[in-house]
């Protein structure tokens, strides 16, 4: 299965600290449970994992079978990095931040039954923080206005934006 993975500069796993080789299969520790398998993203998972660091990298990865689907990621006992998504970088991060900010304003302007101070707080967060935080704030704003389904729909919209902008297949 083809998936994607955000890494810190130099192909370092943000939580594991593992430095990934390119085009070499990497296995989870022998006998490791699913919790310690290698995690990656489907396009729909990417909005949840957008990193704050401007030097972060996004890589296309191949996952070996079996692949287990979780709510916000997929996991496999073996994976290899294929190539970086060159479209991802500070310019797209800035574009994404502006887009989140504009969308938050649109949502806030059409909100009814929600305290303006609450929507203003979300808009301010989307305006001033990094893209990952802006996307989170925007999804929370949508959830506050329209419930869980609206929050999930906003996350799906963000995923489509990323997939189109980064030309993920």
């Amino acid at each position: 299965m083809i998936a994607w993975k955000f890494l810190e500069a130099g192909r370092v796993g943000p939580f594991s600290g593992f430095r990934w080789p390119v085009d070499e299969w990497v296995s989870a520790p022998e006998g490791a449970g699913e919790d310690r398998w290698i995690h990656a993203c489907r396009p729909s998972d990417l909005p949840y994992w957008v990193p704050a660091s401007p030097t972060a990298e996004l890589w296309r990865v191949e996952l070996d079978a079996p692949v287990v689907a979780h709510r916000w990621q997929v996991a496999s006992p073996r994976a290899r990095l294929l190539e970086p998504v060159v479209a991802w970088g500070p310019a797209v991060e800035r574009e994404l931040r502006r887009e989140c900010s504009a969308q938050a304003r649109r949502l806030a302007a059409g909100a009814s039954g929600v305290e303006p101070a609450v929507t203003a707080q979300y808009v301010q967060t989307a305006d001033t923080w990094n893209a990952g935080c802006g996307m989170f704030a925007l999804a929370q704003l949508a959830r506050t206005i329209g419930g869980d389904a609206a929050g999930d729909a906003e996350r799906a919209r963000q995923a489509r934006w990323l997939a189109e902008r980064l030309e993920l297949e």
Partner: protein
Amino acid sequence: MTSAPPHLTCQHLVELVTEYLEGKLSHDDRSRLEQHLCFCDSCVKYLEQMRQVLRATGRLTEESITPEAQEKLLDVFRKWKAGGA
């Protein structure tokens, strides 16, 4: 699949950090915590501080502290508990 929202605040993270570092969180809770870490620099710093504390103190045993140091620590603790520190 659970319908719980992927919403974890900095305060939640502080409450969960010990279980996270001990690998005791459920898969979804760990995901929520790590998603928060993706965009919250303050919590990244906090987590690193907690790791440093564990590295520094994880090796200490009761026997490795001098009686004087032990008494000082207990004194600080007693004052803190009494609200005087």
